[in-house]
């Protein structure tokens, strides 16, 4: 799950130079449009749906992973 999610991040953020520590603060490529693309791709890929309140919190990889895992149970 973690690896799959990280691959998705690399694809959408168009960079391989990121790891699990990636966040909006440390990754310039994580702009608002790619943020939306991330959400769309994660929702589609994992067949889940985020609430706007959750989307607002998704500012770093760890939080996103936790949210995805929480929905997959």
């Amino acid at each position, binding site marked *: 799950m973690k690896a799959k999610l990280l691959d998705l991040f690399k694809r959408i953020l168009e960079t391989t130079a990121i790891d699990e520590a990636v966040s909006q603060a440390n990754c*310039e490529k994580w702009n608002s449009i790619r943020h*939306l693309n991330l959400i*769309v791709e994660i929702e589609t890929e994992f067949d889940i749906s985020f609430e706007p309140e959750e989307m607002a919190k998704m500012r770093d990889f760890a939080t996103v992973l936790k949210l995805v895992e929480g929905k997959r149970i």
Partner: protein
Amino acid sequence: MQYVFRNTTLEGILGMNGIRYSGYDDITFPSYAVDSYVWFYQVPIQANRAELSLELHSYFSKFQLVYRQIPQEIPFFIFTLIPLFSFKVQDSDTAIEIACNEFNKNMIEFATAHTNIKIVDFREFTNRYKQSEILDWKYYFISNMQVNPKLAKDFQEWFAQKGEALAGRRKKCLVLDLDNTLWGGIIGEDGMQGIQIGGDYPGNAFSLFQKQLLELSKTGVILTLCSKNNESDVLEVLEKNPFLTLRQEHFAAYRINWENKAENIKSLAQELHLGLDSFVFVDDNPSECELIKQMLPEVSVPEFPAQPYLLPVFFMELTRRYFATYSSTREDTTRTAQYRANAERNAAQAQFTNFEDYLKSLDIRTDIREADAFSLPRVTQMAQKTNQFNLTTKRYSETDLQNILAQGAHIYTLSVQDKFGDSGMTGALIITFPMPKVAHIDALFLSCRILGKKIEHTFLQEVLKRLPESDIQTVTAEYRPTTRNEVVKDFYESAGFAVVSDTSNGKEYQMELKKIKLF
């Protein structure tokens, strides 16, 4: 580079590759080189239908204002206006539909006289989906997108094909197999009388397919045959079978033999003087298809349906992908005259001829005030998030801002309202006082949704006019480049500041305050 005039968020479906966007409902046009323009306005989501109708009637004259100012040889794609959602309360209330039809009709007429204009019928895309699939309210409210970003891939593929079709780059020649492609069964096995064409299923499906191909050939597509058969058998069937639509005379050339099909297509290309990239190969046999894909990668090879009843879908897809031609949609032009009169009255109210009038028509009201405890959280949020219109990109926290205020600085906020509603607080400006008689603009950032309407200049001038310190003589300012704020690199020049230093680290500016007071 494609430049898109728009009034809603489109980044989610059009993407960012090679595309730049105007501000929302911003009809100023860019100075950099553009390969093509796109006009893609959507019907705003608004409850008051009378106001909305008036707004829609203004789009065509806005468009004309833009059109007059740009080079007329550059392609300009116009999306038709389609209401994706309607807040209709009464069934008889058709004002929005009429306004959309009026816009589309005007555009189609305009396009007939201006050849660089290409009409893109947006309904062709929206018709593929249910309304709930197109408009996802969650995404609308978080990002102002009317078209669900999950449709992005499909949309981009569709629009790219439209672009190809509109640019006239369609394929020219269809290479058709015979057995199990133009009829059911195989001549060599079922005999000349045993093939299935006409009559009951599946013959009726092949019959319709042949009729559709004949219509396609009337639009200029060249039909050819390539079949592994005895030539004399096939020619006899083409001549004698009473149920066929396509006869020998409908084919510009044919290769009926037992040679490999790649060689046959090459020789067809030579005979017809066409490039292989203008060929589309249609064959029910997957191994033949694979051979052509391998040997002749320039030739397009669509996947043939396994069931004959899917032939109509296959034909539509074939036409759409390879043989679409550009022509105006006429369906929108045939509405009744009575409705048109109403529409014209509305349009007259929404006319204007220059940019100043346009600004006036937006009825923009700005509210500039000093930040207080209530507004600081929002200022902090903007300081953290604003990327494009941000002169110094200082990512202040709320505590930082409190400290700055405690040191005597002023923070001004900007709220903007126009006739469509309140955008809320959309900008802030921080003034510090580094030395006596000098005011320094430490930070200035605005949401890009309000740009292009001269609001940024108004904001700066107003703030400087209002400074409570009466002894200020000089205003200094700075620009710090980031990867995202290039749009503002000449902002202070445009506001009348003089450049004091210009290095890779940014620019420093200065201006005498009395100059500003003259505005």
